[in-house]
């Protein structure tokens, strides 16, 4: 057993801001969003018209749009030994191949393409609704902590699709306007797409690599209450946060990169849980005001942004924010927030009441 922490020794990302994590970081810190009218399918009959799609994303005939995103990530993954396990997070995988006649599970297709392109022999899909990426990071940290392996590639990938677009619309979860996480007048989410990887390593395996941050804690807790609505008081998210913190005092947390979908119920619950642990002044921001809700990949974007926030000692501004939700006035800001402290928390909450918290600490 190790002390339970693992090092982040590599990270890469594709999202609607562009190819490369720098594009996402640049836009988020500039307060820019990446939404544009949906052209991949006709959304005319659905209540939203915007989504955060990767610019110029195209695939070969018969291939999923996941493939060009994975292709961008592959060089970093391919540097590692073929036996390095891959934990791939996704809600529905290569959903654009659902009706292509193969009769195959779209998650299974994603796993196959990932292993082929990353040149790896061992990997698994992890699917826990919109908490999939944080769940995968949690499992990877535990694999390393248990001594099962020294290196793990955590991946995440989900697409903007007519499937998900119509589905979230059917639940009344989408907005016809802009996504405004943590805003008093928020009216729903907008979808996005992304793929990313984190290379996690044990202390031993991290020697000789540049360590951008440490993942020092994580936890998963279920609401066990409702299949789509979160528990209103956020009690189980609070519990996940406290479990992830372990012995670390809450005042050591410099920032929270929240799930912040822009729906009324999620943001309200999340703010309640965060306030109970940290009070009402901890800096908080969500990437979904800029990159959209990237479903199973949202925790991946968040982890990369949390690492960057610790490096810069500054949290990105809240894109889309106009008037903060009551109770969050001193937590969210349209301006970048200067951070005091060396630790940040990333939160996911998904359908089924899955809550997952990941604790990241700066390399000292």
């Amino acid at each position, binding site marked *: 057993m190790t002390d339970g922490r693992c090092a982040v020794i590599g990270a890469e990302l594709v999202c609607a801001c562009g190819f490369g994590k720098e594009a996402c970081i640049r836009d988020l810190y500039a307060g820019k969003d990446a939404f544009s009218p949906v052209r991949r399918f006709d959304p005319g009959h659905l209540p939203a018209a915007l989504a955060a799609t990767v610019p110029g994303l195209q695939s070969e005939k018969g291939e999923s749009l996941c493939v060009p995103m994975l292709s961008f990530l592959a060089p970093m993954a391919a540097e590692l030994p073929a036996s390095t396990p891959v934990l791939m997070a996704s809600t529905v995988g290569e959903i654009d191949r659902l009706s292509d006649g193969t009769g195959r599970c*779209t998650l299974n297709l994603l796993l196959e393409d990932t292993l082929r392109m990353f040149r790896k022999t061992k990997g698994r899909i992890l699917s826990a609704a919109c908490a999939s990426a944080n769940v995968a990071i949690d499992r990877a940290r535990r694999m390393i902590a248990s001594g099962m392996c020294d290196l793990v590639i955590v991946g995440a990938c989900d697409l903007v699709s007519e499937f998900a677009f119509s*589905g979230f619309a059917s639940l009344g979860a989408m907005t016809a306007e802009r996504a405004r996480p943590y805003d008093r007048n928020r009216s729903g989410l907008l979808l996005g797409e992304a793929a990313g990887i984190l290379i996690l390593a044990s202390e031993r395996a991290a020697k000789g690599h540049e360590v951008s941050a440490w993942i020092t804690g994580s936890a998963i807790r279920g609401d066990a209450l409702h299949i789509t609505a979160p528990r209103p008081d956020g009690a189980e998210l609070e519990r996940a946060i406290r479990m992830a913190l372990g012995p670390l005092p809450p005042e050591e947390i410099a920032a929270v990169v929240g799930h912040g979908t822009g729906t009324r119920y999620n943001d309200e619950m999340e703010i309640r849980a965060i306030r109970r642990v940290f009070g009402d002044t901890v800096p908080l921001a969500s990437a979904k005001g800029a990159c959209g809700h990237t479903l199973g990949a949202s925790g991946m974007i968040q982890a990369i942004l949390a690492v960057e926030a610790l490096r810069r000692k500054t949290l990105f501004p809240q894109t889309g924010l106009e008037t903060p939700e009551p109770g969050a006035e001193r937590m969210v800001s349209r301006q970048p927030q200067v951070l005091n402290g060396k630790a940040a928390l990333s939160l996911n909450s998904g359908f089924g009441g899955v809550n997952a918290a990941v604790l990241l600490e700066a390399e000292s």
Partner: protein
Amino acid sequence: MIPGCTIQPDFTLRTRKRGLQLAGRDYPDLLKQLLALEGVPKANVQDFRRGGEKVRQAILGSIAALYDAAAAPEETIPILGCGNEGSFTENLLYFNDYIEHGRDGGRGQLFVGTLPSTPLCEAAIALNLHGPAFYLDPGADSEQLREEVELLFADPAVSRILVLEYRNGELQVFCPERGGEDLSCVF
């Protein structure tokens, strides 16, 4: 033998250890028979709420597996789903229905079932289980399932795990306990 059960799409249930066999007219009938048995864990189920077939099997199977293990539904029990099928059938059901209805709007009830974690979470809701619930697809490498079970047991708060494996319409549920037989005998 690891406790657990098998649920078949013809509404029959068989537990692994106690050898209980039930046959129902449908899943609600099977549930009624199961809940009438002495020593069955209490469950918050009202005619399966909104769930489709996999949800119904998951709820029934989780209750029956805990009964077979003579175990109470401790709140820390994790639920691990597997079986390579994901939610392909449910995804097609939702999307074809959406297309057949002129793409005017999907049916939310069907969309909710399109995640492979949905049946696990519905079982967690029914039994008030707050441990991790997620779906794992290891391709053809079942060793990774055993690894995941080992990891879940590395948490000292976890004394039992529910492992739900869907295959060809059938659900098998295993309820390994800490220190008991490992899953190498079944996977």
